[in-house]
């Protein structure tokens, strides 16, 4: 087991800089910190999405590591291809890592992700979840939560925002019997970086799902993204958990949750929500936690 990582002992080396992400971008923060854990030996694969768009603009490359843009549907496939290629060329322990957004993971890329986990190869897949297709201008994805307004699910006169619920990627991935899977948030950085370290140490496929607020898409100040990432865990709308050795584990199980309204009200995407919508969001949260507490705790 590697030592526990924290702000004091994490490397000062930077592997991701000079990129064109918006101020306060949760995904870029997650990526930057993940690379501090993974180090320069990691070969990165990124599909279309904000992180690829902001970091490979010829001739200004933002990655110090080896990095490749993949076809949108193919993050996991390219990642395992890189891994297989390196292994076939004689590298002992290649470290291949895919970074994809929520759309690139839960929608178009889910087949390749499923196939790659199924093959059982050692690779890390990190989903940076900003709950919409941001790079193409904030459209609904399979991970957009109930109630959120996006450009394809606007708060209209008839239908107010997104009426679907967030697909549960963490449990879908776990159902594959993956070696290691975890959820994380940029609001809890220590927890996040140590999970990435665990993924790095895992002897098989691993998946980390990181909650990554997006000021541009969410309609909030760039200075509050990290705070939103904390608040969403404290109010129970996002949970921190792991799946390892066939078992689920909850990392934070608060006795009481903070109310969800203050979190929602800080974001433009939820500003149309009515009292009844908020009550519904809370009741769905409670049902989920009842399941978690009954089954995982």
């Amino acid at each position, binding site marked *: 087991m590697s030592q526990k990582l924290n702000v004091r002992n994490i490397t000062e080396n930077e592997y991701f800089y000079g990129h064109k992400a918006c101020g306060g971008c949760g995904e870029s923060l997650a990526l930057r910190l993940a690379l501090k854990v993974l180090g*320069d*030996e990691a*070969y990165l*694969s990124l599909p279309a999405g904000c992180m*690829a*768009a902001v*970091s*490979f*603009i*010829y*001739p200004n*490359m*933002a*990655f*110090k*590591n*080896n*990095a*490749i*843009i*993949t*076809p949108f*549907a*193919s993050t*996991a*496939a*390219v*990642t*395992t*291809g*890189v*891994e*297989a*290629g*390196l*292994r*076939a*060329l004689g*590298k002992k322990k290649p470290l*291949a890592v895919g970074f994809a957004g929520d759309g690139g993971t839960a929608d178009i890329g889910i*087949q*390749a992700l*499923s*196939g*790659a986990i*199924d*093959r059982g190869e050692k690779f890390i897949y990190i989903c940076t979840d900003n709950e919409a297709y941001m790079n193409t201008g904030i459209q609904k994805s399979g991970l957009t939560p109930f109630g959120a307004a996006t450009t394809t699910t606007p708060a209209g006169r008839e239908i107010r925002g997104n009426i679907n619920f967030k697909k549960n990627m963490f449990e879908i991935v776990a159902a594959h019997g993956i070696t290691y899977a975890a959820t994380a948030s940029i609001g809890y950085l220590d927890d996040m970086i140590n999970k990435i370290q665990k993924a790095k140490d895992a002897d098989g496929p691993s998946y980390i799902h990181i909650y990554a607020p997006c000021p541009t898409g969410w309609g909030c100040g760039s200075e509050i993204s990290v705070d939103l990432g904390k608040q969403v865990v404290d109010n129970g709308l996002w949970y921190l958990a792991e799946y390892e050795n066939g078992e689920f584990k909850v990392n934070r199980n608060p006795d009481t949750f903070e109310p969800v309204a203050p979190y929602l009200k800080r974001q433009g995407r939820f500003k149309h929500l009515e009292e009844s919508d908020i009550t519904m969001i809370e009741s769905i949260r409670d049902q989920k936690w009842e399941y978690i507490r009954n089954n995982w705790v």
Partner: protein
Amino acid sequence: MNDKFLNGNEAVAYGVLLAKPHVVAAYPITPQTKAVEKISQFVQDGDLDCEYMHVESEHSAMACSIGASSVGARTFTATSSQGLLYMLECLPYASGARLPIVMMNANRAIATPWNIYGDQMDIMYALNSGWVQLFVEDAQEALDVTLQAFKLAEHKDVLAPVVVNLDGFVLTHTYEKVSIPASSEVDAFLPPIAKYDHIMSDEHPMSMCISAGNHQNQGFKQLQHEALFNAEGVFETIEREFSTQFGRAYGGAVDSYRMDDAEIAMLTTGSVTGTARVVVDELRREGIKAGLIKLRMVRPFPTKRLLEVVADLKGLVVFDKNVSFGYEGTIFTNVNSALMQSGKMLKVENVIGGLGGRDIPHHEIKSAYMNLIDKKNSKQVRFSDEEVTA
């Protein structure tokens, strides 16, 4: 050398075995299946030491190939028809990133109507993908060209992916005697893949498949365009080396049969060439100066070679196993464009046939030739058999 009784799929598999790829990623589809099965067998038996990736789709087969090739691994995949269309998005990624991946495509009809038999509609969708496109006539050529394809793709002046096309069933499933070169000889012909500057490595970290804006993008495409043209000359050199070493030669990008004094000719791609060859012999016996042009390379398009071959012709019929709906056969379009460039006013006709595996009988080939003389059929573009049996 050692002789075996093989079908085209197996011949390609032996080519792959001898080429010793580092990674093979493939997904089954009729009529390519036997090729990937045979390669798996080689791997499972320990005859071929490579990473065989059992992917969940063709899109991933090409994506895995891109990943493997991006770190410098020699990489092979195979597909056909709907599978090729499914991976289509990935093809320009591979060529734009200048990755020397080799693929076999078993030419097959495109749905709908569903049909598993051979025609060349599938690969025509990939004509603009930046891949070198080769077509073979028989199983021996399939094996030999598979070996040449790796050398061609990996050549420093080319660095483009290559697809080797085999007509579905007619080539993939018929057996013939195939001579299998000794591994040591192949090693001498096809050395290990070079370490290129443009791939990812521990020594020189790289950003690959980058984005390039309005100003630079065209420059990248121009470089790629020029490199693809290089493939024609390099292919001819590789074939000469191959024939010196293995004693078999195929004539480069454009092969000709009885063309020396020919007045009329047919241009074919793939397996129909065999039938046309028989027809040419027969026409010659009847005193008609007929010849045959076998187009082996469709991208880059060998314009110059083609013009040399047709220089003294009075009439040419282009046989297309595909149709570009609402226009004409795709090879015909390409041939016409080449002729226009030379300013040569040659009588050219287009016969489209063999779609969905429809039989291409000897008499239809013959009447296509005869029409160049008799002009019974005034249509410049027509189907080999005008009867519609739908």
